[in-house]
C-alpha cells in the first residue's frame, strides 16, 4: 500500500517535471486550478461554514435544528422536493411527447413545433409565472376579464408546477430528441418484422432503449426545478414556501446569514445527489447504436389515429406556449394590463430605453465580457482534461462540472459570503457578476469540447508540435479550430444563460451594476406587468439577434461548421 502511494507520488513528480519544461502550460494549469478553487469551491465552503453558526457567530447546529422544530422550514423542504419530482415527471413526459412525435411520426409542422419547444430556453426562466398571473391572476385576462372569476388560486403547487413544466420541458425535449434520433429505426422495423404489434414494439424496443435518456432528463429537470428561483418567487406565496426563495428571504429580508446558508446546504444535498446519479450512473447506461451512415426512418411505428392524438397534444402544448408569448407581447404594448388593454402604447419601451436602460447596458456588458471568456476557458479546460496528464486533472474535471449541480441560490449566497470580506472584496462590483457567470456557465463548453477532442486523433496535435509549434501555438492553430463547433455551442449557451440568469445574480447586483432579469422581477413584484413584459421582449430580442450573429459568423467564416448551436 505504501509502495503504491510512493509510486503514485513518484509519477506525479515525474508529470510535474515534464510540465516544468513548458512554463506557460504549467502556469495555465496552476491559474485554472486556483481560480476553480477560488470561484467555485471557496464560496461553497463559506456557505457550509456559515450554516454551522448561531446568531452570535459561534459554532452551532442551530440553523439545522430548525428543520426539526420549524413547521415552515420543514414544509419548504417538502414542497421543494415534491415540486422537483412532479416537474421532473411531467416535464419529461411533455418532452418525450414532443421528441417522439417529431422523430417518429410524419405529422405536419414539425419544424414549427421544434422551434416552439425550444423558445422557452432563450427566454427569462420565469416568463411562465408572469404569464400565469397575467392570464389567471386577480385581474387576469382569462380568469377575470373573460370568466369574471376574481380569486382563482394560482399561487401554490399547481400554478408553480405549471410554470416550471413550461420553463424546463425543453431541456427534456432536446435530450430525448437526441436519444431517439440515435436509436436506429431499423431496430423497430426488425421488431415489427418479427411479428410485434406497434404497441409491443414501442413498449419492448423503443421505450427500453430510451429509458436511460428519460432517467437522465428527469434528473436534470429535478435539479433545475429545485434550483429554480424566479417562478417560485412570483408564484409560491407565503403559504407555499420553497427552499430557494426561503434562503433568499432569510438573507435579503432578515439578514440572517446562517439560516439562509443552512437552507442553501439543505437545497444543495438533493441537487448534488441527483447530479452524481446522473453523471456516474445513468450516463454510463446510454445505449448508442452506431451505424456509420444515417438510416432512413420508415416511420410506421405509430398508427394513424394515434399519430393524430399525439399531434393534437403537441398542438395543445404549443398553443399554451404561444399564448404565453402572445400575452407577454401584448402586455408590452398595452397601456395598463388588466385595466386598459386595448389602447396600445410604446410607453413601456420608452421606460426600458429610458430609466431602465442602464440595466440593459449592464446586462450586455457583463454578458459580452463573460461569454467569450467562458467560451475560451471551457475549451482550454476540455483540452487539458483530455490531452494532458498532470496532478489535479480529475479535480479540474470534476470541479468545473460541479456548477451544473449547484443551485444558483447556493452559489449566489456563497459569493456574498466569500467576497464580502478580505482577502477578496468584490461585492457590488462588475467583477463579482462576471466571475459568477464565467464559472457557472463553462460546463456546456467543456462537455462538448471533451466530446469533440475524444474524436480527434492526438497525432494531429503531435504533428504540430513535431513541426516546431509550442503548446500555445499548437492549441491556437490546430486544436482550437478543430474544436470550433464545441466552442460556439459553449458560447451560445453561456450567452443565453448570462442574459437570463436570476437565481445567483439577484444576490450580486448592486446600484452600479444591475441586470435586466432582476429589473423584470422587480417590476413584476410591484405589479407593473407592462414594463416587465417590455423588458422581457427586449431581452428575448437581444438573445435572438446575438444567436443570429453567431450563426452568421459561422456560415460566413467557417463553412465547414456542422454542429448545432444550442445543446443543453
Amino acid at each position: 500500500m505504501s509502495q503504491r502511494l510512493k509510486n503514485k507520488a513518484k509519477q506525479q513528480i515525474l508529470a510535474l517535471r515534464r510540465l516544468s519544461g513548458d512554463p506557460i502550460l504549467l502556469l495555465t494549469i496552476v491559474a485554472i486550478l486556483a481560480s476553480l478553487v477560488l470561484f467555485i469551491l471557496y464560496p461553497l465552503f463559506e456557505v457550509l461554514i456559515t450554516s454551522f453558526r448561531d446568531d452570535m457567530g459561534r459554532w452551532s447546529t442551530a440553523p439545522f435544528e430548525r428543520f426539526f422544530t420549524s413547521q415552515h422550514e420543514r414544509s419548504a423542504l417538502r414542497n421543494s422536493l415534491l415540486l422537483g419530482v412532479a416537474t421532473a415527471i411531467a416535464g419529461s413526459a411533455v418532452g418525450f411527447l414532443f421528441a417522439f412525435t417529431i422523430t417518429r411520426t410524419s405529422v405536419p409542422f414539425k419544424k414549427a413545433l421544434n422551434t416552439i419547444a425550444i423558445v422557452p430556453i432563450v427566454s427569462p426562466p420565469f416568463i411562465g409565472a408572469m404569464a400565469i398571473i397575467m392570464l389567471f391572476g386577480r385581474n387576469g385576462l382569462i380568469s377575470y376579464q373573460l370568466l369574471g372569476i376574481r380569486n382563482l388560486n394560482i399561487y401554490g403547487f399547481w400554478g408553480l408546477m405549471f410554470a416550471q413544466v413550461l420553463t424546463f420541458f425543453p431541456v427534456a425535449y432536446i435530450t430525448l430528441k437526441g436519444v431517439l434520433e440515435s436509436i436506429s429505426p431499423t431496430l423497430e422495423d426488425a421488431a415489427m418484422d418479427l411479428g410485434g404489434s406497434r404497441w409491443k414494439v414501442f413498449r419492448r424496443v423503443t421505450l427500453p432503449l430510451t429509458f436511460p435518456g428519460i432517467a437522465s432528463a428527469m434528473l436534470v429537470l429535478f435539479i433545475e426545478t429545485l434550483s429554480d428561483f424566479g417562478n417560485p418567487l412570483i408564484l409560491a406565496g407565503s403559504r407555499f414556501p420553497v427552499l430557494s426563495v426561503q434562503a433568499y428571504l432569510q438573507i435579503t429580508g432578515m439578514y440572517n446569514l446562517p439560516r439562509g446558508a443552512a437552507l442553501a446546504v439543505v437545497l444543495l444535498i438533493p441537487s448534488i445527489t441527483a447530479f452524481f446519479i446522473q453523471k456516474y450512473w445513468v450516463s454510463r447506461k446510454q445505449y448508442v447504436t452506431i451505424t456509420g451512415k444515417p438510416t432512413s426512418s420508415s416511420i410506421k411505428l405509430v398508427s394513424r389515429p394515434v399519430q393524430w392524438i399525439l399531434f393534437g397534444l403537441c398542438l395543445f402544448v404549443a398553443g399554451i406556449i404561444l399564448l404565453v408569448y402572445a400575452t407577454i407581447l401584448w402586455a408590452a404594448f398595452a397601456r395598463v394590463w388588466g385595466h386598459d388593454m386595448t389602447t396600445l402604447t410604446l410607453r413601456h419601451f420608452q421606460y426600458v430605453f429610458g430609466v431602465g436602460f442602464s440595466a440593459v447596458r449592464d446586462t450586455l456588458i457583463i454578458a459580452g465580457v463573460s461569454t467569450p471568456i467562458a467560451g475560451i476557458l471551457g475549451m482550454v479546460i476540455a483540452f487539458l482534461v483530455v490531452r494532458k496528464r498532470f496532478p489535479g486533472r480529475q479535480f479540474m474535471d470534476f470541479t468545473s462540472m460541479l456548477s451544473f449541480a449547484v443551485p444558483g441560490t447556493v452559489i449566489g449566497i456563497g459569493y456574498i459570503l466569500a467576497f464580502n470580506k478580505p482577502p477578496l472584496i468584490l461585492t457590488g462590483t462588475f467583477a463579482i457578476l462576471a466571475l459568477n457567470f464565467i464559472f457557472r456557465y463553462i460546463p456546456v463548453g467543456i462537455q462538448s469540447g471533451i466530446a469533440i477532442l475524444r474524436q480527434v486523433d492526438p497525432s494531429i496535435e503531435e504533428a504540430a508540435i513535431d513541426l516546431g509549434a509550442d503548446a500555445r501555438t499548437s492549441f491556437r492553430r490546430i486544436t482550437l479550430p478543430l474544436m470550433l463547433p464545441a466552442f460556439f455551442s459553449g458560447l451560445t449557451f453561456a450567452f443565453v444563460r448570462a442574459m437570463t440568469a436570476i437565481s445567483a445574480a439577484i444576490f450580486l447586483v448592486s446600484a452600479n451594476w444591475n441586470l435586466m432579469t432582476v429589473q423584470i422581477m422587480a417590476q413584476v413584484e410591484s405589479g407593473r406587468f407592462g414594463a416587465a413584459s417590455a423588458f422581457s421582449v427586449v431581452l428575448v430580442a437581444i438573445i435572438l439577434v446575438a444567436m443570429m450573429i453567431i450563426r452568421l459568423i459561422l456560415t460566413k467564416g467557417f463553412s465547414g461548421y456542422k454542429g448545432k448551436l444550442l445543446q443543453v
Partner: protein
Amino acid sequence: MSVRLEAIHKYFSDPDQPDNRVTAVEDMTLEIQEGEMVTFLGPSGCGKTTTLRIVSGFEAPNSGTVWIGGKEVSHLPPNKRDTSMVFQSYAIFPHLSVGQNIGFGPELRGMNKKQIKDAVMEVMEVMNLTDLYHRSPDQLSGGQQQRVALARAVINRPKVLLFDEPLSNLDAKLREQMRLEIRRIQKTFGITSIYVTHDQSEAMTVSDRIVVMDKGRVMQVGTPFEIYSRPANYFVADFIGRVNFIPCTVVGATDGALNVQYQGGIGDAGSAEGSFSAGDSALTVVRPESLRLAKTEAGGPKGLLSGVVEKQVYIGATVEYEIVVPGVETPIQAVTFNPVEEGFIETGSSVEIDFGMKAAHLIPVQ
C-alpha cells in the same frame, strides 16, 4: 546528422496499478550514421514505436540518453528537436488546405508568405503534388495524403526523419510503390531516417540497416542481407521470412566451415552464430529456396536429409513442398522454381534433400 541512443530504458505503468510495469524498451544502445536509413522491425508491442517516440521527444526514457548530431537532446521537448515525424495516421490538419499543411513548418519558423509559398512549391514538385495546393485534405486519396504528410515532414529539412508505420493504411499495390518513393525522397534529401514497421518486406526494401526488436530488446542489427542469411538467433530467423530449423551435431571444422552431422550424412555450414566445438548440438538455419530436392531412387545417392512429401502446392512460378523428415519436428519447407521444365514431385514420394555450405547457418539450440 548521426543519431545515438545510449542505454535507453522505458517502461509504462498502469496508473491504477503502478507496480504492474510493462517494459517497452530495455537497455537499447544504437548508433545511426549520417544519411543512413535504419528500420525498426518487430512484432507489435516490441517497443519499436516507443523508441521512435523517444527519439522524437514524445516519450521520455526512464533512463538513458538520446544524441542527435553529437549533441544530447534528451531534455528537449519535441518542438525543439530537429526531427520530423511521418505519422501512421498521417495526422494531416483537416481544417487547413494541402498548401497550408505543408507550409505549416516554415510558417512557424517565421518565413514570409512568399518564402513559404516558394518552399512549398519546391517540395510539392519533388513529391509530384503540384496541382493540389488549394485542395482540402478530405479530397485526397490515401496515396496523396501519404505524400502530403511526407512533404510536410521534409520541408523543414530536418536532421532526422522519423516514419511511424507510414504505409500501413495503404493497399498492397500502393504500398510497394510508396516504399520506393520514400526511399527516393530520403536519398534525394540525404536525411538520416528511422523507419518503424512490422512488415518485413517493407523493411528489406527501404533500409540500409535493420534493427530487429522483440519484447523491448534488440535482437539483431544488420543489413537486410545479414538479417536474412545470417540471423543471430532463433527469433530473428523465425521472424524474417520462411525458414527451416534442422537439429544437428557439430563434428569438426575444416577451412573455415563447420562439419555437421545430419540424419543422412555430414554437411558443411558456412557461417555460425557463436562458437561451436565438436560434439555440440546446434540448429542449422536454411531457407526453403536453398534446398535441392531429388526423388529417392533405389541404390541412388542419399541426401543430407531424407523424407516423404506430405503436401505439394503449385503456385505458378514456384512449387511449395512440405516434407516430413524423421527426427525433425516440423515438416521441412522447400520451394522449387521453373516447374514447367523441372516438373513436380508427387505427394507421398520419398525425397532426398541437399543444400550448399553458404546456405547453412548454425545457431545454438535455444
